[in-house]
């Protein structure tokens, strides 16, 4: 049986496990070596807890990573895995996913790995829409090399390599992925196990490249970077939850919401009308989130509601989820079409070698 019967079209061709699995089976015998308190632990636990739910044969799952703290991830999962070189995991995974439709391919990368040294591979994987899931651990800092600013660090960040403050504007990974017309783009948080798992399920179910940005705390070099969206006192006003088909509304007791500005077409945050605030925006005017919209423009506008500096506000959830043909499916289809009726490759080879103008010497 294949997972066709399961709710994961993304994993359609991956054989299903014969028996139920548990997290222990997905845990390798290697000692986990992240710093105490690192957000990576929570993501690992969530993934180890979630993989059994996919119901796939463990031997058909492959994790490919680049270089950086989070890229140690594959060592800790008892699946097939490759800890490759800096920035190149999406390229390596593209070759693997294209040549093997029966594998569930995951890429684990970080903000430096995916957006700096490997930026080119990331955008091209997204535009090709290769069937794989990319987990982008964004801690907004270089951890493994001990604390230099990263391409997602806020402007003016004082680090070892920028004692007077960093000078370059940060990337917004979700905006970047949507700009590359990624077909599945989402954001979640290391500490919110339930949200993380639901986003990962949706990402796995997606056929095509799924990019999941995971806000991940690095207590050693960038502690507190996500405090505003994690702290129980502030998070209601900081997180803009995106739920397909629901109005984009957040804040204590839904006091805030997102509307389209008719003058500019962009989105902005407003106070929603309520008993305490009769002059506020009527709730029916709020933008209803459509993750399946073919045009990524609104999703992009939503991504712009993320603070570029210290994070006091960020939309969380699935920004875009659309069905497009995948590169690897199309590549395999071309081969199938070309090979239709081809039975004896040795004979075909003889035919190939003898093609063109030939002559015989007796």
């Amino acid at each position, binding site marked *: 049986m294949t997972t066709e019967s399961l709710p994961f079209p993304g994993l359609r061709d991956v054989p299903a496990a014969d028996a139920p699995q548990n997290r222990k089976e997905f845990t390798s015998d290697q000692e986990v070596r992240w710093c105490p308190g690192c957000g990576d632990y929570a993501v690992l636990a969530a993934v180890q807890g979630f993989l059994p739910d996919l119901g796939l044969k463990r031997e058909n799952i492959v994790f490919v990573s680049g270089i950086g703290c989070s890229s140690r991830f594959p060592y800790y999962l*008892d699946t097939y895995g490759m800890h490759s070189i800096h920035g*190149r995991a999406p*390229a390596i995974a593209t070759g693997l996913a294209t040549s*093997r439709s029966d594998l569930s391919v995951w890429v684990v990368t970080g903000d430096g790995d995916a957006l700096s040294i490997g930026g080119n591979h990331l955008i091209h994987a997204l535009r090709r829409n290769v069937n794989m899931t990319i987990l982008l651990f964004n801690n907004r800092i270089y951890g493994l090399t001990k604390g230099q600013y990263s391409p997602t660090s806020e402007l003016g960040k004082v680090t070892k390599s920028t004692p007077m403050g960093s000078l370059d504007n940060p990337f917004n990974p979700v905006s970047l992925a949507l700009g590359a017309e990624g077909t599945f783009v989402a954001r979640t948080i290391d500490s919110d196990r339930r949200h993380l798992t639901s986003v990962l399920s949706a990402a796995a179910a997606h056929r095509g490249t799924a990019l999941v940005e995971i806000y991940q705390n690095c207590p050693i070099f960038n502690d507190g970077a996500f405090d505003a969206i994690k702290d129980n006192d502030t998070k209601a006003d900081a997180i803009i939850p995106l739920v397909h088909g629901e109005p984009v509304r957040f804040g204590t007791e839904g006091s805030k919401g997102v509307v389209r500005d008719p003058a500019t077409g962009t989105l902005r945050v407003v106070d929603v009308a309520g008993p305490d605030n009769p002059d506020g925006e009527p709730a029916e005017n709020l933008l209803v989130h459509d993750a399946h919209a073919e045009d990524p423009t609104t999703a992009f506008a939503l991504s712009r509601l993320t603070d570029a500096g210290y994070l006091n506000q960020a939309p969380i959830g699935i920004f875009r989820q659309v069905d497009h043909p995948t590169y690897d499916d199309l590549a395999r289809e071309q081969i199938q079409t070309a*090979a239709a009726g081809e039975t004896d*490759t040795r004979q075909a080879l*003889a035919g190939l070698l*003898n093609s063109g103008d030939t002559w015989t010497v007796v």
Partner: protein
Amino acid sequence: MTKQVKQLDRVIIRFAGDSGDGMQLTGDRFTQETATFGNDLSTLPNFPAEIRAPAGTLPGVSSFQVHFADHDILTPGDSPDVLVAMNPAALKANLGDIKPGASVIVDSHDFTTRNLNRAGYAENPLETDALDEYAVHAFDLTDMTVEAVKEFGLSRKDAGRAKNMFALGLLSWMYGRPTEPTITFLERRFAKAPDIRDANVTAFKAGWNFGETTEAFVVQYEIKPAPMESGTYRNITGNLALAYGLVAGSTQSGLPLFLGSYPITPASDILHELSKHKRFGVTTFQAEDEIAGVGAALGAAFGGALGVTTTSGPGIALKSETIGLGVMMELPLLVVDVQRGGPSTGLPTKTEQADLLQAMFGRNGEAPIPIVAPRSPADCFDAAVEATRIAVTYRTPVMLLSDGYLANGSEPWRIPETDDLPMIDPQFATEPNHTGAKGQEEFWPYLRDEDTLARPWAVPGTPGLEHRIGGLEKGDGHGNISYDPANHDLMVRTRQAKVERIADTIPPLEVDDPSGEADVLVLGWGSTYGPIGAAVRQVRKTGLHVAQAHLRHLNPFPKDLGDVLKRYDAVMVPEMNLGQLSMLLRARYLVDVVGYNHVRGLPLRAAELADAITDLVEATTSTGDPLGDADTAEKEAAR
């Protein structure tokens, strides 16, 4: 009129014109006709890096040289007997290469003041004594072509474009080439444009008829077919042979071929060719850059495919980190480097043995990889199959070093029987290979085969063999990350030893020393095989003794190479670089080889090389020791 027929044993013709004149096609067609006729042949296309350099200028000149004979030949020839020049620039750019007395056939149509100036001629050479040394035949080929094809109603410009076919027809008549293959070819090529098709066929025939009827040519030449081993032949370029070799490597190993590649001159034709062969299960992935090309190939190799990447020198520089990862992860990977002039962008369309040292050492750390080099265009097929054998058997990246001359040059190829091709067994791991401390069955990804030192190749999808590999140093056997000093020392040595083990399966070096009396050995690698062979023949014709050997395997070397080197008083190593093989030989065998080095972007000239060999042979025979430092007694003993 009846023409005289003169027998020749060999001829070198160079077609030269503007980049837009279709000289490559003309040369290619003449070559096909010649191949079908049964001559041995060798070709040298030469074209500018610019797609269309300004028309009529020297940088825009494109040429195609073909050497054909009634006996076996090894090179496209140093110096043409016949130059076909379609404009003043083509004449000017090529005149320096031809022998006095050579025939020069010129299309006089473009010899106008403007075009003469553009080519740098102050006076029309057809009207001065500038060409007195040559047998010049100048005609307005363009006008004759336009006249011949006027019934098809093409514009004058379009009609004139068929002039290359007129020239081809004329040369085909002169050398008694069969015409049917070209007519069939034109009919197929222009099937969708009947007027162009008819114009080309008509121009071609008109050229032939012109030769037959004009009084300007009184002699027709005949070059008998060359005796060749029985079999079916076709003419083939190195890039095509290499692509076929990769397909054969795939069918012989049963591994689907995955090519990850980024376009680069002069390697792109391999990508183009392989993309046509999807019916063999070939995937061609045009990546976003060189790094992604090799990365995807390595990812596919992890999944059990025959991963291949094709490039040229600058691309290798970009891929080196990934090749190092392949060395560390010990996965099969074919890296094809069609070398070109360097450094940097260098000479994209010209040949050079630029990258032997890059192939050997161009990675961080101790990262040995096997290196295989074809020696002629057709040999690219066998070299690709051999590179596949090594990569798959030893689980290692392998560098296949072709070059621009091999890539675009062509020669007749005796098509092998597929049954004669070697079978390559990937021997995938399917079972645990180790029993753990608690008696549990485990898979150890770095537990090696005792003979080959290769590690097991367990592909995803194999139950029970889940494992993680990567660029960090691996512990011997179990393959987990290890920073242990002794383990690193062991692993570095083991990776080196594995590559050296390949020598167990490499045949002894063939030394061609017919008289057995040679004191001098000429040793080469790669595409210099032809020029070295031709030069050695010339030297032997003068009565001197000289031995020749050629390396296919550059890493590891054949086991007996050291012994062979020591058998000779002097060893000359001709290379199209500043002495890269020389450096390796000196370092490895402490033999002070004599370099012969040219880096002109063109194949070595056999005649010049023959002079250099003659000088060395004479110096060696007179002193017994050209360098004055060899222990002669030891050498005698070694013999």
